[in-house]
């Protein structure tokens, strides 16, 4: 092997291992998108530190385990701090909510980890604010319910209402889960984007569909479309009474009428739009062709084969005569090839 090729191959191999593949949906750890806490700065700082540790672990999974022990310590400390800060205030459900939260972090699910936020929900202007960790709202007795002007917290929290203090607490805790939950959502985004591109290709590169084809494909592929999860495109397209302009050659037709424009109508057909057993998109249908020639039956019955979603060739029996047809795209391709061959011959002729 000569030296330039060896250098080229070495370069390719080196960059393949050193330079990570670029992904448009590559996950970037973001800054916590929550306002600075007024009353719980320490808790918020610890939450942000946990968030960064998750970022480091998720970006380098081979070398870093998820900081589960640090997370447990954070949750336990935050729970203690909250009970201490709210001691003596009429917010009995806080302990139960934080006990639930610690339980989720400590003994909840493993894959994924349960990483809920403290939700602040107000249904209408006349309703109270309701506070509960995600996953712990159904037990109404455990939900903290406060009017917006509840003043019970004012003396302990610089004049702020209890609803304001609890919203501040929710913002202080929230950063702990940002990167972990964002990372999971990013995996969803990446795969959905990939499937969206496949859907685009299904409609742009696959064979064009009429309304009937859409209906038939929807019906024939309903198991995949009605699956209980989001889906990429089905492997096949189905066709019924699908018209396609073609050019047909009937050797037995009168001279001058052998090549004619015709319309092929696919009675029923199927097309594997992305790949097939022959290694490229392929389809087949039972078809009729329609044209007008003296002495030859207008209608011919036969089969059509489709290649690469664009080109078709077919055979039809018009009474006693055989007809052979190609799609206009294939004809154009032949003409382009013919022009290229003629140009080559001209060039060769000139050299000779």
């Amino acid at each position, binding site marked *: 092997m000569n030296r330039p090729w060896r250098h080229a191959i070495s370069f390719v191999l080196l960059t393949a291992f050193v330079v990570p593949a670029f992904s448009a949906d590559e996950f970037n750890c*973001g800054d916590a*998108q*929550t*306002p600075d806490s007024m009353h719980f700065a320490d808790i918020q700082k610890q939450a942000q530190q946990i968030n960064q540790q998750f970022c480091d672990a998720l970006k380098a999974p081979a070398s870093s385990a998820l900081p589960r022990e640090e997370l447990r310590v954070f949750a336990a400390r935050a729970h203690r701090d909250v009970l201490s800060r709210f001691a003596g205030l009429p917010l009995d459900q806080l302990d139960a909510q934080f006990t639930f939260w610690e339980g989720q972090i400590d003994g909840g699910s493993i894959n*994924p*980890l*349960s990483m*809920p*936020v403290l*939700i602040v*929900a107000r*249904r*209408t*202007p006349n*309703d109270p604010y309701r506070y509960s960790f*995600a*996953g*712990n*709202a*159904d037990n109404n007795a455990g*939900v903290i319910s406060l009017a917006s002007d509840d003043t019970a917290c004012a003396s302990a929290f610089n004049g702020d209402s209890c609803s304001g203090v609890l919203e501040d607490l929710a913002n202080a805790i*929230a950063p702990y889960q*940002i990167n*972990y*939950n*964002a990372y*999971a*959502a*990013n*995996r*969803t*985004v990446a*795969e*959905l*984007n990939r*499937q969206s591109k496949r*859907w685009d290709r299904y*409609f742009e590169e696959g064979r*064009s569909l*009429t*309304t*009937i084809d*859409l*209906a038939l494909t929807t019906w024939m592929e309903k198991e995949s*479309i*009605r699956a*209980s*999860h*989001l889906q990429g*495109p*089905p492997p096949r397209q189905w066709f019924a*009474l699908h*018209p396609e*302009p073609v050019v047909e050659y009937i050797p037995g037709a009168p001279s001058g009428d052998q090549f004619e*424009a015709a*319309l092929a*109508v696919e*009675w029923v057909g199927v097309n594997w739009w992305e790949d097939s057993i022959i290694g490229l998109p392929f389809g087949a249908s039972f078809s009729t062709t*329609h044209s*007008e020639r003296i002495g030859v039956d207008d209608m011919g019955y036969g089969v059509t084969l489709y290649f690469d979603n664009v080109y078709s060739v077919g055979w039809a029996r018009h009474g006693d005569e055989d007809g052979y047809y190609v799609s206009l795209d294939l004809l154009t391709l032949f003409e382009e090839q013919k022009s290229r061959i003629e140009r080559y011959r001209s060039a060769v002729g000139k050299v000779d």
Partner: protein
Amino acid sequence: MAKKQKVVLLIHGMGNHTAPGTTSRGSFGKEFIDTCNLALERYPKHAGQGIESHVDIVEFNYNAWFDKVRTKMADKAKSVNERLTAIGAAYQVSFPLSFVGELSSLEQKYGDDKFFYTHWLDVIFYSTILGAKVRVDAGAAIAKLVRDYGAGNVHVVAHSLGTAVAHDTLALLYRPESDPEDKIPDLHPVNHKLASVWMIANVSRLLHSVNRVADPLHSVVRPGDAGCTALMNNVRHRLDPFTWISRFSPQNDGRWLLEPVYDAYYTPIVNDLVTSGNTHAITQYLDDPNVAEVLFAQLLKFKASSADLAAARAEYRAKSLQGAYAVLQQELSSLQIGEFQSWSDFLSAGEKLQNAIDLIRKEFK
């Protein structure tokens, strides 16, 4: 502009909706923002504030893609019709050419601006495999906002056909259990619980009876611990014909939600004031204080006293068209649009809805 803490994802309904550009709003986004801004003016503590000073607004548009499909079909039908003419086919009498000719003639009209082609065809398209692609794209839009803002800061507002898109997508996107057949990682109802979901002129049950994707009364699209959202709101107008068929209207009887969850986290809203000819329009829904004050309570730090709320309602009532409700109710009651069992019922319902809309428009010309 700096990114806000909260974001609203808008999902439009049937009809022509221009897509947003890189620096411009789409038509649905513009309607939402303009109407919210007008409504905010009724509350003294928020006068002069625009909705965009409180939340970011993101639009999911699928109409542009449906238009592309419609145009491609219309163009292809044109070339087929030209070939039919060229071969001098007597397609009026000879099958299958007669059928092909009729279908091509129909598809050539897909570019027309009649109600069937601009509205009902959207519903038909959504019910086919085209809908599966819309759901993947909507899922990506939702998951991106969950990733970038945190699910607890994401509000989804859907209107008309958009409610079916929103419901079906969320139902397939959020799964608490794993499925080995599912190659797309799902969002989690606890870790990725949304802040609120708004279904305005909800047709999700109507579409379910056709496409069988997910039953709105048994899906994860609900508030509460097992649901995908903290708060859920369902809005209809008594004289919006699109909400008469297969109406989503669960009662507080413990069957859809536990009663305390229904009371605390679900808001059914029924409007009956008529201020414009189009009772289905998103603008009429959002302008009504029944909707606006609840939307603002959930989206922003909404401050309005009881007197402010009452004054806003009185101002809106003064805008309403006197006597319109009674007149419309009488005229529309004769249309008898009910549940349907087949595609022909479905298409007939489309025709009746067109008649209903024509009646309403004629009344308020």
